[in-house]
């Protein structure tokens, strides 16, 4: 494994009494595509927000290119963030800007490109995610949830960041669009050399876009290995998760309460 682009050790994050991440370790090698899977509410989005510096972990270290970014502020933090592109689970498009302005935002504000140049690039990116030019002047409130995801993805990759975070990139998309997005994510990581960290519930998509998979349970990574070895892992947790059974070592709180 080449040197880790992202290296997380002992990450802990609690909200009041709700311990979400409990000593989580994870390495993502440069140029690799890592997928994180886990039950709803297991802390996958929280993990991403800790890496992005949007939430402050209680304990642990997060190294990006060998530099601990926990508690970083000011210019140093800006430098690190310039390497990131993020697709939020809810897409989080700016509703006061139209679609191409959303995609161009990082280019204009972050990289200081002119509006004209940024618009050109934004149009290309939108085309790549399957949004035609005729839609580019609509506002986020005027398009469907799935399309918002596509635009959010275009915005995340617009600045060609070194590290891409995708929070459920294909949720809410039809299978054909889903496949298009999967291919695009693979292109970003395999051809353009970006490092990817994605979260998804869609196992088919996860297999297509990942080099490695990690399963989060009770705030820890309990299995992490190459995607190809997933089916033969012999790990009861992994087997239960990929088969989607309610019986197994993963406790389903709802069922227990009503048993």
């Amino acid at each position, binding site marked *: 494994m080449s040197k880790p682009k992202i290296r997380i050790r002992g990450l802990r994050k609690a909200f009041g009494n709700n311990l979400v991440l409990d000593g989580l370790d994870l390495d993502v090698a440069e140029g690799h595509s890592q997928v994180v899977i886990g039950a709803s509410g297991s802390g996958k989005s929280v993990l991403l927000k800790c890496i*992005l510096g*949007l939430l402050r972990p209680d304990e642990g270290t997060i190294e990006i290119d060998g530099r601990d970014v926990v508690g970083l502020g000011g210019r140093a933090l800006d430098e690190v963030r310039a390497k990131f592109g993020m697709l*939020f689970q*809810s897409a989080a498009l*700016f509703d*006061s800007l139209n679609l191409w302005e959303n995609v161009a935002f990082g280019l204009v*504000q972050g990289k200081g490109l002119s509006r004209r140049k940024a618009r050109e690039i934004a149009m290309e990116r939108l085309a790549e995610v399957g949004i035609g030019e005729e839609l580019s002047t609509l506002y986020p409130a005027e398009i469907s949830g799935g399309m918002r995801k596509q635009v959010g993805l275009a915005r995340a990759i617009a600045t060609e960041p070194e590290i891409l975070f995708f929070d459920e990139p294909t949720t809410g998309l039809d299978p054909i669009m889903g496949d298009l997005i999967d291919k695009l994510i693979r292109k970003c990581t395999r051809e353009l050399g970006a490092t990817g960290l994605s979260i998804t519930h869609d196992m088919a998509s996860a297999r297509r876009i990942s080099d490695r998979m990690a399963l989060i349970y009770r705030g820890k990574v309990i299995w992490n290995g190459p995607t190809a070895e997933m089916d033969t892992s012999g790990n009861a947790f992994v087997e239960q998760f990929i088969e989607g059974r309610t019986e197994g070592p993963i406790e389903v709180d709802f069922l227990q309460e009503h048993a």
Partner: protein
Amino acid sequence: MVPILTPLGRTFLVFLEAAGRLVIFTVSALSHCFRPPLYPRLILRQMVEIGYYSLPVVGLTALFSRMVLALQSYTGFGRFSAESAIPQVVVVSITRELGPVLAGLMVAGRIGAAMAAEIGTMRVTEQIDALTTLATNPFKYLVAPRLIAGVITLPLLVVVADIIGVFGGYLVSIYKLGFNASTYITNTIDVLETQDVVSGLVKAAVFGFLITLMGCYNGYHSKGGAQGVGTATTNAVVSASILILSFNYLITELFFAR
């Protein structure tokens, strides 16, 4: 004893935490107002939003409140045969107090609420997080332009309101109370001192700051979906109104207490 003290102490701590958060917010918001890059386009858009679109509401408030003022003071002053003092009373009370305070309260209702709702929605739908990940500081992009626009625009709005207000007093005095038009205008101009106008404009600028600060602060710290945004909106208007009234007293004290 302990059961009484515990909730009391807890309330006090919550209060301290909120106060500390507000101070930190204000300081970092202010520091971003003075450090480049500023966003002129965003400032301009906010100025239009705060100033231009508030004109009807502020103008109407000014007009009617001054017309009533002229009428009422006529009744009151008539008892002492002091009707001739009406122009003075109208213009001084308007420029010093009524102009900035009424405009401030109306704008707090319009703009404070709108800002808290907009920024609050951006917070709960993760748009503020998205801003941050796109290498844009939300204080710089969202808060600073609004504060700057508020401080610049409110005084302008108050000047317009003052003029409309004096005109309203004039209308009532001439057509209803039978004053002589030219005497009314001469009296108005004679009695007006620079300090009256300056204190009114200083108040307006401070109110503009308070309104936008409360809108941004409450929006920025809102949480918990639509309900949280609703709470933030209410808090923004209520806290801005209370602050306007108390700062009005403080500034009056500063300017006119001898």
